[in-house]
C-alpha cells in the first residue's frame, strides 16, 4: 500500500450534518487529514509486520522441509 497524498487527492472536504452538506472549515480539514495520515501509517505498519511474518513462516517451513498443510496438521 503506497502512501497517499490526501491533501492533493482531497483539496476540499465535505461533512454531512443532519442531511445537509457543508464544506469543512480549515480546522476541521486539518484534523481530518491528520487523522487519515495517522491511520494510514498504522495500516502500513501492520501490513509490513504481516509481510515479515509471512516471510519468516515460509523460511521456517523451508528449513523444516514441510508444507503449510503439514504444519497445520502438526498443530491440530
Amino acid at each position, binding site marked *: *500500500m503506497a502512501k*497517499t497524498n*490526501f491533501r492533493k*487527492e*482531497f483539496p476540499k*472536504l*465535505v*461533512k*454531512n*450534518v*443532519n*442531511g445537509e*452538506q457543508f464544506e*469543512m472549515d480549515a480546522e476541521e480539514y486539518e484534523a*481530518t487529514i491528520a487523522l*487519515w495520515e495517522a*491511520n*494510514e501509517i498504522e*495500516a502500513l505498519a501492520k501490513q509490513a509486520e504481516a509481510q515479515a511474518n509471512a516471510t519468516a513462516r515460509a523460511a521456517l517451513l523451508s528449513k523444516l522441509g514441510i508444507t503449510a498443510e503439514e504444519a497445520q496438521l502438526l498443530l491440530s
Partner: protein
Amino acid sequence: MAKQTFTTGQVLTAAQLTSLQQTAMLGGAASAKTASYTLVAADAGTAISMSSASATTITVNTALFAAGDTVQITNLGAGVCTITAGTATVNTSASLALAQYESGTLDFTSTSAAIFIKGAGATASSGLTFINRTVITAAATTTIDSLFSDTYENYRLEFYCQMGTSGSIPKLNFRYGTTTHSANYNYGFEGTSISGTASNVFNGSGLTSFSLEQVSSGGFATLNLFITRPASSGFLFANGFFNTPYKGITYGGGLQIASAQAWSGIVITTSAGTLTGGVTVYGMAKS
C-alpha cells in the same frame, strides 16, 4: 327502526318518521346488548351494540332476513364479540371477531346467507416506525442527530457504503446530545466465506469507535444493526450482521458501548477518504 310492511293509506306517526329518518341516516340508537345474542327478524335495518367484559357471540340464523337487509354490529366491550353462523351462512374477507370499538355490517345476500363487512378498526400498535433516511455523497463525516429517544427502546439501523479510497475502513460512533462518544466500544464479529474455507474475525475492547475492519479490500459494505437503547441513560447494545464482498464473507456479531449515556445519534467517519452511501433508521414499538 325494525323493518315494517306499510299498507296503502296508512298514516305514519311523527315517531315512526323520526325513527325511519334515523335509520336512513345511520343515526338510529343502537339496540344495546350485554350478553351473547341471536339475531331476530326485527333487527333488520338496525344497529346492535355489544357491551361485555367477557367474550360474546352474535348468532345469525336462516329464514329471518331478506336479500338486501343489513344489521350493523359494534362492540363496545373489552370482550371480543364474534359473529357466529347459526343456521345461516356468514362469509367475510376479514375476521368475524370484533375487538373493542370495532364494528361491521352484516349484508344479507339471501334469506340464508350474509356477508360480514368489517370496518378497518384500529391500526396495530406494533411494528417498525420510520425515523430517518440520510443519503451520503462523498462526505468525510456524516452526523445524524435526534435518531434515538425514549419513544423506543429498540431500533433497526441499515447502513450501506461505498468507500472512495482503497483500503479505507468505515467507522461508526454513537452520540449523546452534541457529543460524539469515542471510548469503551467493545465488539466481536465473526464470518465465514461462501466457500466455507475461511474464518475471519474482527473484534476488540475499549476501542474509540466501531470499525468495520473487513471492508478495506472490498470497498463496499452493508451493515444491519438491531440496537437496544435503554430508556433515559445506560449502556448501548446492538447485534446484527455485516456483509462485504471481500472473500464473500457475511459476519454476525455484537456491539456494546460500556458507558451510560442518553444515546441520541450517530456519526460516520472513515479511516481515510470519503464515503458514499446511506443510513436508514426505524424504531420498534415497545409492545
